[in-house]
């Protein structure tokens, strides 16, 4: 099981710099980061090597931070592999709330991070269909 931290940030210069600096100072490595924003504010989602530690660290700074479980699926970095994951989930009626991916080795391996409503069920569906899911440690050691 992988974990993701989400951070509330206003759309102002220096917000991402501040968060990445705090994580760097805390000796935490960032594996992937994605930002979505709306009216003047946004949510930064981050995958790190030590999510619990990162969560405590940001909370202690008074930054609204949330720690949650996500599914990290290993994919071929090839056309059609994202579709394969989406298809399995959709056939089983699982709705993807949010997803983002990052490439580990170009042309070979990528990771898709997905957030769904019923995490354990989605996980078991993917595993039964032969997908490999990653834990926090595995993400870090990729």
């Amino acid at each position, binding site marked *: 099981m992988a974990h993701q931290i*989400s951070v509330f940030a206003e759309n102002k210069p220096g917000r991402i710099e501040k968060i990445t600096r705090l994580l760097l100072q805390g000796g935490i490595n960032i594996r992937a980061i994605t930002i979505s924003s709306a009216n003047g504010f946004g*949510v930064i989602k981050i995958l790190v090597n030590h999510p619990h530690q990162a969560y405590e660290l940001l909370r202690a700074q008074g930054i609204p931070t949330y720690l949650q479980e996500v599914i990290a699926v290993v994919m071929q970095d090839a056309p059609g592999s994202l579709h394969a994951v989406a298809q399995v989930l959709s056939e089983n009626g699982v709705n993807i709330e949010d997803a983002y991916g990052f490439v580990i080795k170009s042309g070979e391996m990528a990771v898709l991070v997905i957030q769904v409503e019923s995490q354990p069920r989605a996980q078991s569906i993917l595993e039964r269909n032969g997908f490999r899911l990653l834990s926090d440690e595995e993400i870090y050691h990729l």
Partner: protein
Amino acid sequence: MYWEKDLEIMPREELVKLQRERLHKTILQAAKTPFYRKQFAKLHITPESIQTLEDLQNLPFTTKEDLRQGFPFKFLAVPLEEVVRLHSSSGTTGVPTVIYHSAEDLDRWTNQVARCLYMVGVRKTDVFQNMMSYGLFTGGLGMHYGAERLGALTIPIGAGNSKRQIWFLQFFKTTAAHILPSYALLLANLIKSEGLDPKKDLNLRIMLIGAEPHSEETRQRIEELYGAKAYNSYGLSEMNGPGVAFECPYQNGMHLWEDYYLLEIVNPQTGEPCASGEVGEIVLTTIYRDATPILRYRTRDLASFIDEPCPCGRTHRRISRIQGRSDDMFIVRGVNIFPIQVEKVLMGIPEVGTNYRIVLEREDYRDVMRVEVEIKSELFLGDLQKLERLRERIQSELRSEILVTPEVSLVEPGTLPTQEGKAQRVLDQRKF
């Protein structure tokens, strides 16, 4: 239950009789001051002709501006050597208003505050931490002497310096506190950031909140944060200071001490009396003060009468919580808005944090009202859509309260500026 039972539950007819006697003495005192002597002469009024509240209403209002013009001695009714203290507030123009107190005046005021504190349950066994400014401002000293009169262990810590406040709260197991409502909200956050729970790790049971208008929602939030009862306190330096009106344990309106003041509530535009329940400006006449008598003082504070008898048995009439100040109202696109209306909406939404700010700007000759709202860290669940829905909800609830659609921005907790622990609520950057 009562500090002075005979006075607090005095039948109305007797109370009115007592008011007449005291009004009479007050008018004689007023006639000794240069300001009222001149006014009475100009209006051909003799002190004997003013016996009742109705008679009094023939006199003009006294305003803050009058007090300023009267600086330094035009409202003084006793020889200066009889004066033992003065309190002063500086106005925006820089000319201060001054209120002088004789030894007896101070004694009465102290008794008045002790009456309030006793009413809400403060006793000599309490440890009372007074987190208000001392000095010329009356909030600190006024409450201080009342608490001492009760025999409570009184800590004159003053305002600000949160670390020290927290240390005293913990070390002396403070049970009662006098605090600004906005500071109570801020302080709770600071207490939490030290790893403490204001509810579990402190011993507060009674909080007296006053000196700035606040909503019922804010009071409830303070009570939840500290696990204490919070009582609304009303006062102003021109009328002594804290203790003018105070909530009883029923927390439904504030009893205004009518053996100390004559109370009127008037329409701020016309000066005509308001009906019960109708919001207007509080107008007060001191009837139990010798050194600085003030007749029909326009407080600028807005409230309404509550006419029904109170279950606590006190016969002194109640006023609603302060709905705003007739001079802190601001106008956006022609609509009158009071900051307290915004506060009421925000403090009623659980996801909203403890601080907010109203920013007024002018873009292309059009007013823009922006409300910056801190979100509550604990309720952030990493979801952008939930935040956007929260933002929309705040916007629509504000629109139905103030009839103007404001821009709403969500901001990180602890990022809005505060001044000396007092939140800055309205920032008007419009240039007309």
